[in-house]
């Protein structure tokens, strides 16, 4: 589908790495396609990474997000882009980044849960007045809505779709991207998962957050909600969840009140992320004409259980 994009992006990455005139002396194996999706094609060439963003990405907002990643206030939190001129490829904006070493999917015990928690706390605590602006809205809830639309377009079996739809319709409007979030907004990542961290300079540098496509102002609990959703679905062990949320609280992350139960603020975002993940899984399984596997069923079960328990109200809303 986008083979021509990856080929062109590979050439672009090569030029970014060596300049337009120098010979490439890199070993043949070095150009690597790290991701190839409509909303993000990523090619590595040596120490340079080129990313083609979504065709419909708002160019002004992307420029602001890039400027935030390059801002000194986010040094040590977000990977800064390379200082290369913006370009377009096949109607998609292209940005350039230094290569960093990702989390090893085959070594769960070395996943940097404390570091993720601490990085998010620092991101959320960044004073936004000093940052380039106007800062766009964090796209987390919008992505959840997109996932549900994607599931609907795939036409999954009715009983499966009904479970996801019921959990989705029980969410408050803000979590479905239909209104502004309640409470104070902070700088948020918007799409946190373990693929969003790299060590730079790798493989022993500090951990940094990558991918600013969804970054913006929003409810910071959203960034904690995907691990919370995995934990609630039984996919993440209590020890790992506690390492993550404990590090976030210890670093004074503003999303959860210190020393008290974090679930009242996590409940709605964790439900939304569970629905989003389940919707994507159902869409993929339907398109591939296969049954849901045990992990996907665990997410669907979580959606099912939600229907029986109304969303929790955060403490301030309950008063």
């Amino acid at each position, binding site marked *: 589908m986008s083979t021509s994009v990856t080929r062109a992006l590979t050439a672009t990455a090569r030029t970014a790495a060596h300049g337009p005139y120098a010979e490439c002396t890199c070993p043949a194996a070095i150009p690597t396609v790290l991701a190839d999706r409509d909303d993000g094609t990523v090619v590595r060439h040596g120490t340079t990474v080129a990313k083609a963003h979504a065709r419909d990405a708002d160019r002004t907002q992307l420029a602001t997000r890039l400027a935030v990643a390059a801002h000194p206030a986010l040094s040590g939190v977000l990977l800064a882009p390379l200082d290369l001129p913006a370009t377009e490829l096949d109607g998609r904006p292209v940005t350039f980044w230094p290569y960093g070493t990702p989390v090893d999917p085959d070594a769960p015990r070395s996943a940097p849960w404390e570091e993720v928690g601490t990085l998010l706390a620092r991101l959320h605590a960044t004073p936004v007045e000093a940052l380039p602006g106007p800062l766009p809205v964090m796209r987390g809830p919008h992505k959840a809505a997109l996932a549900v639309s994607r599931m609907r377009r795939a036409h999954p079996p009715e009983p499966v779709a009904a479970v996801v739809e019921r959990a989705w319709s029980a969410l408050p409007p803000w979590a479905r991207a239909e209104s502004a979030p309640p409470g104070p907004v902070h700088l948020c990542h918007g799409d946190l*998962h373990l693929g969003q961290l790299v060590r730079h300079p790798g493989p022993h540098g500090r951990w940094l957050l990558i991918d600013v496509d969804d970054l913006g102002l929003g409810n910071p609990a959203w960034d904690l909600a995907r691990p919370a959703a995995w934990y609630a679905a039984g996919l993440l*062990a209590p020890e790992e969840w506690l390492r993550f949320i404990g590090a976030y609280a210890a670093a004074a992350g503003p999303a959860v009140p210190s020393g008290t139960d974090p*679930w009242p603020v996590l409940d709605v975002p*964790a439900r939304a992320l569970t629905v989003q993940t389940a919707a*994507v899984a159902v869409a993929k399984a339907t398109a591939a004409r296969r049954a849901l596997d045990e992990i996907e069923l665990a997410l669907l*079960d*979580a959606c099912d259980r939600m229907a029986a*328990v109304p969303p929790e109200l955060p403490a301030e809303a309950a008063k």
Partner: protein
Amino acid sequence: MHCPKCRAPMQTYNRNGVQIEQCNGCRGIFLDYGELEALTRLESQWAQQAPPAAPPAAPAPAPQAYPAAQPPAWGAPHPGHGHHGHYRQKSFGRMLFSS
């Protein structure tokens, strides 16, 4: 007897020789004088019979300062430590790394 809380009838069960009453309505449990102590004694005897390698060798987990261990009411029952391995290994590579 009837439940002191919800007035529903209570049923008597025998657990390791200890009589306990459970309410058919609210599922609350009533223990007579000395029954809690009897159950505690049985529990400690059972723990002592456990294979000697495990409890003393494993360092006690650090006390959790943060009250986040309870999943939400809609969460999956966590089967406790050690039962997660295969499930987690399988899920880790895929779910935890994608949007």
